[in-house]
């Protein structure tokens, strides 16, 4: 018997299904196949949706934050000009105005000289201003002239120039009553880079000294009364003249501050959110990756084991 002949015989002799089995199969209820969700396309769709949601969140976040940018900046500037109310309370407490950048003095002339003083009380006032000027020599001379015109004097002057830039530092004392005029004049010298105003109440100290002097007089202690009077005079002197530190410079800022546009803020925020999302995805991959790999290996191993067991079972089955 040739090989081909027994193979053909096997094929041709293969029996058909019995009629009773055919009847059983025909009696099965009919069922229509319905399209079901397939795993791989569903996974790809889910991934696409996740990416779209991530991008959408980044875009929405970028748009929202970019529209909030102006409001925040305005309120911050507004706060910068709020004097501290506690300056009028106890001695030793100071009102401070934070520095701000590149404000045109002519635009801010009203709020550059805020009235922090109370005329009925003795106060020590310290003002520190930094300005960028075009003509250093002329600005310095005008500052000195203004000081003298207002009844003040120059306590310290430090003037230096080189090839690229020049700096002038003046410490002037002006009468408290003319301090507002002095500040208003100094702001006209150039562009304000920073300003610091400090007000300290001295009235409490003067009142306390007055009481102690009266007590010393009643007790007949002339020496103590004289010593206390000297201290009082020094305190009054301190409260009569305000100290103004004026820093004039011709140096331009390292980089010109350009206010970002709304698109710039949107793009920055979007990049920021996308970066965070990417970090989150990487974290998830780093954490879940080994477990997924182990699970995949376990599944593959189980499949191989089951395949071998099935083959062994069929080998044993006669």
């Amino acid at each position, binding site marked *: 018997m040739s090989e081909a002949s027994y193979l053909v015989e096997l094929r041709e002799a293969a029996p058909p*299904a019995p009629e009773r*089995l055919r009847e059983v*199969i025909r009696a099965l209820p009919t069922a*229509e196949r319905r399209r079901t969700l397939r795993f791989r396309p569903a996974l790809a769709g889910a991934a696409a949706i996740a990416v779209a949601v991530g991008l959408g969140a980044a875009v929405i976040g970028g748009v929202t934050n970019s529209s909030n940018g102006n409001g925040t900046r305005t309120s911050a500037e507004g706060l910068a000009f709020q004097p501290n109310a506690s300056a009028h309370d106890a001695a030793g407490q100071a009102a401070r105005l934070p520095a701000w950048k590149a404000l045109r003095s002519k635009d801010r002339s009203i709020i550059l000289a805020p009235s922090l003083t109370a005329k009925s009380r003795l106060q020590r006032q310290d003002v520190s201003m930094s300005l960028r000027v075009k003509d250093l020599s002329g600005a310095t001379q005008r500052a000195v002239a203004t000081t003298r015109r207002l009844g003040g004097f120059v306590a310290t002057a430090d003037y230096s120039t080189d090839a690229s830039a020049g700096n002038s530092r003046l410490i002037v004392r002006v009468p408290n009553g003319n301090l507002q005029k002095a500040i208003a004049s100094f702001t006209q010298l150039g562009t304000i880079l920073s300003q610091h105003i400090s007000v300290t109440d001295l009235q409490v100290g003067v009142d306390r000294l007055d009481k102690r002097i009266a007590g010393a007089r009643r007790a007949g202690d002339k020496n103590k009364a004289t010593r206390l009077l000297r201290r009082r005079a020094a305190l009054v002197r301190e409260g009569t003249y305000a100290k103004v530190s004026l820093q004039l410079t011709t140096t331009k800022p390292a980089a010109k501050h350009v206010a970002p546009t709304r698109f710039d803020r949107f793009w920055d925020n979007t990049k920021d959110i996308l970066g965070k999302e990417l970090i989150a995805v990487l974290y998830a991959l780093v954490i879940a990756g080994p477990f997924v790999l182990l699970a995949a290996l376990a599944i593959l191993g189980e499949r191989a084991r089951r395949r071998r067991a099935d083959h062994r079972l069929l080998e044993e089955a006669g």
Partner: protein
Amino acid sequence: MPTSWPTGKRALREERSFATVAEEHLDDVYRYLLYMTGNSHLAEDLAAETFERALKRWRRFDPRRGAARTWLCQLARGAALDHFRSEQRRRKREGVYASDIPELDETVFGEGLSPELDRAVRSLSAAEREVIVLRVVLELDGETAARVLGIRPTAVSTRLSRALQKLEERMVSDVRG
């Protein structure tokens, strides 16, 4: 009559009923199970069980992933393996080792089959008969048979070669007496 389902976009357009597919591939499933079990009654029962399973899973069947005949053969294989496993457990439990293949004079694998060929086929293991029925009787190509068996096509060729060699040897020894 086509022996397999259309694939790709055509498959989406051509929806076929379960009854049509069952009628078309009933003989193939029965023959496959007959060769695996070597018992016509058992093959009948397992074929019925196979189509019941197929009916339950019909909604999940995707013709783009493979032909209906391949899918049904995979289900039939699962049903046969479940049967063999339960038999193995029963034997271990009862300590009985009885032959499943009835020692009858009548041929099991077809009316027109010569007695020596029928005896030789019976003497093979279920694994050897399985690869013969898939490749020779049902005429599945190597790739499709490999998909049913869950192995590589080269492994199918090796198994088939060994099974046929063994079949020939049994026939020759049977003729020599």
